[in-house]
């Protein structure tokens, strides 16, 4: 008599997947913000080197891409 076929299904822990998703959301958007800020930041420093009064404007423009990572953070918080 043949033995009954048994199989074990391994399931990933949903909490773990959530954590990976949250990590990706913050990590990737962080990289994207970094890439976007790189050029703006160096341009702001260049302009500031010649004209110090541009500091305020330069700073604001440099942190605008920061919104990308904030969205990532919000998504991460929603997931987890």
């Amino acid at each position, binding site marked *: 008599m043949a033995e009954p076929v048994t199989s074990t299904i391994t399931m990933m822990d949903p909490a773990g997947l959530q954590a990976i998703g949250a990590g990706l959301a913050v990590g990737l958007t962080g990289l994207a913000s970094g890439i976007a800020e790189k050029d703006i930041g160096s341009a702001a420093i260049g302009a500031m080197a*010649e004209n110090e009064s541009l500091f305020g404007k330069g700073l604001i423009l440099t942190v605008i891409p920061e919104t990308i990572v904030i969205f990532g953070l919000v998504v991460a918080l929603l997931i987890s």
Partner: protein
Amino acid sequence: MQLLQKFKRGNSRSRFTGHSNYAYTTARVRAMKSKILPNETYPRLMNMGIYEIARFIGESEYKEDVDELARQYEGADLIEHALNRNLAVTFTKLIKISEGELNYLISENLKQYDVWNIKTILRGKYCKASTEDILEAIVAAGSLSYTFLSELATKSNYEEVVSELENTEYYAILRNYNGTNLSEIENQLDKMYYAGLFATTGSSKSKDRKLFARFIRIGIDIKNLTTLFRLKKAGITDPDMMDLMVEGGLKLKISDIERMLPLSFEDFIAELSKYTYWEEISDVVSPDMVSLIDVESRLKKHRLKSAASFSNVYPLSIVPIMDYMLSKQNEVSNLRIIIRGKAANLSDELIREQLVI
């Protein structure tokens, strides 16, 4: 950090093509351009006396240069030296703040000052000018330093000057200089400069080098057109004069120039109306015009204007930097015209005609 930059730049060959810091350089250059004297300043300067102008320049961007040189020179000479020094310092700064391909293209372009300085020194020696007079016209913005150039200027004759330049790329041409063929040598130096520029842009597919080439070619057109106007006005139709023309123009090909050279002044003007530059100069050009000053300043103005609008089309490229270099050169030349004109007691009208505003 230096290690990281070294890694990014890779080996020495990639210095010419490596990573360029466009964002930093163009933003900084634009901030520098905002300090260029606005057009309204020139009419104000025209109403001032020579000492007032000197004081005005001494309080502007040129302050440091004027202060530095005030012990050695005075009056118009002081301003002239300060302007030249400022030009050299500004352009050398452009080389210092740029990286990679951008740095390479700027350095290649600034070789025009090496050629200019060598020509100035040779001319000075040719007409036995004093060392002081030669130094007045030197702008050490290229690869040759001011110290080296001022040493060259103190040499007693041209043979010594040429032998000092033995290790430079210009020696191949300079060694043929025999003390009489100065204009021929000057032409060859100019052509060598342009050949060098085209060699840098020739086969490359990069967008930046193409823009650079286009910019240079418009410059060549303007140069050739100015030479043609002068030749035609003087009634010269000698085909040997083709030696004076530089190859590689954008709209005016060398074959077009060859066709125009034998024409009379009237026919030349009629022929010129087929080209796009005609729009810029049509209202000041007529067959019975007396002076070419208007045409020449109109052409220069066209170049400045087209550079400015071109730099808005390509904000992150070499163009804004070339545009700044042109504007700076123009500012220095305008200030020099005013100060020299006032010193020589020329009429305001005459000085105003020469300005490119």
